[in-house]
């Protein structure tokens, strides 16, 4: 495309099908303890 460059991102809609396994890290266990940050976490679902 000439006018648009798209960054590669996870498809949210597809994640509805396989998501919710809960194996990923809990938000507050990472570093913060005072905010809620989920966008930086890695998916750990083996069946995604």
């Amino acid at each position: 495309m000439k006018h648009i460059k798209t960054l590669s991102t996870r498809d949210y809609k597809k994640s509805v099908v396989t998501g919710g396994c809960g194996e990923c890290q809990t938000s507050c266990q990472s570093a913060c303890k005072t905010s809620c940050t989920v966008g930086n976490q890695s998916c750990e679902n083996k069946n995604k």
Partner: protein
Amino acid sequence: MDVYSGSIHIVDELTYELIPVMEENRDISDGELVESFGSSYSESEIKEAAAELRELKDKGTLFTEDSYENYVKDFAENRHAEPIVKAMCLHVAHDCNLRCKYCFAEEGEYHGRRALMSFETGKAALDYLMDHSGKRVNLEVDFFGGEPLMNFEVVKQLVEYGRSREKEKNKKFRFTLTTNGMLLNDEVLEFANRECSNLVLSIDGRQEIHDRMRPTANGKGSYEVILPKLKKAAESRNQTNYYVRGTYTHYNTDFAKDVLHLHDLGFEQISVEPVVAPTSEDYALQESDLPVLLEQYDILAQEIIKRLKAGKFINFFHFMIELEGGPCVAKRLSGCGSGGEYLAVTPWGDIYPCHQFVGEEDFLMGNVFEGIKNTEIADSFARCNVYTKPECADCFAKFYCSGGCAANSYHFTGSINGNYTIGCELERKRVECAIMIKAAMADE
């Protein structure tokens, strides 16, 4: 950003102008677009950009509608019906060797008495976690305080106990340690580097900033005591799987300098975060601080790009964003998990929804010996998600913060379904900066 598909598009000026018009009128013709924008752009350019936008829409990566509300509500209901615990914040010491002025734990005491967790109580907590984690394999335990190294012997015993049960229970513990660094020594480091997947080391940045808020019991600054220990810890972990973690307050709204100071000291994994305190405190962030704070994130983002492009690695926690391998929608929209999959346990075994609620008797859920007694609290947390927070409805950042911190919401609005507005403003700016950094580095 196309909020509901998660797609991020970098567009030129013409396309940027076309987007709101084409979103408002999905069937607008090329002729109508040329009529509106023809004075500034050529007809062929307009038609070309419009075609590209229509292509994205057809691919489902532009103008995507919200279709997740029922899914997330069902997810929350299931979580309510079959609660699973997978992470615990173990308050192994309600005591501390520092007297940090902003400490939400009130110098380690959490509105209560000074106490150390016994091995028996910690063991009961780990048993509770293993027995209530269903099929989850990965379990997280953070040794927290107060200062957890004031009870290091019990920390070691608990890790040994947890590891001894992993195979039989088909669980994998990820232990982390959050420490102020005062008691870090070779023995602790050897242990932490063997057993802890993450180490969080508290330091606020420049010496005068750090010492002002983090004095020892006799009133002296702690910076000079901890700095060599923290440097050694970071190096011994090869600059990975740790964070130096600072708090910024009303007294250092120019916190970008503190982040860069820590980087200049050689730390590569840095988290410096806003203090959370009632606005009545002199060090609390005020709404009037916001313009400066937002500008600081911009300054920091630009400097981080400069340093990264110069080959100097730096990871600022709040600018981390996982675009390709990030969480699913359920994780993104169903809240932080406090009061359900994440619980905090006091030295005597009481259970609270998270470390920020510890000591607030209205939020006492039960204890590790008898389990959850106050199911009303558990229910309210299980059902809390971005769709129960009206102020999240139109916010693009909700897929990155999951509705924000329940404790902040409660403390500032009286409800876990409220929104801490200063926190929201800062979060939006951080997401914006994080994406900007990704885009800038993608150009390399």
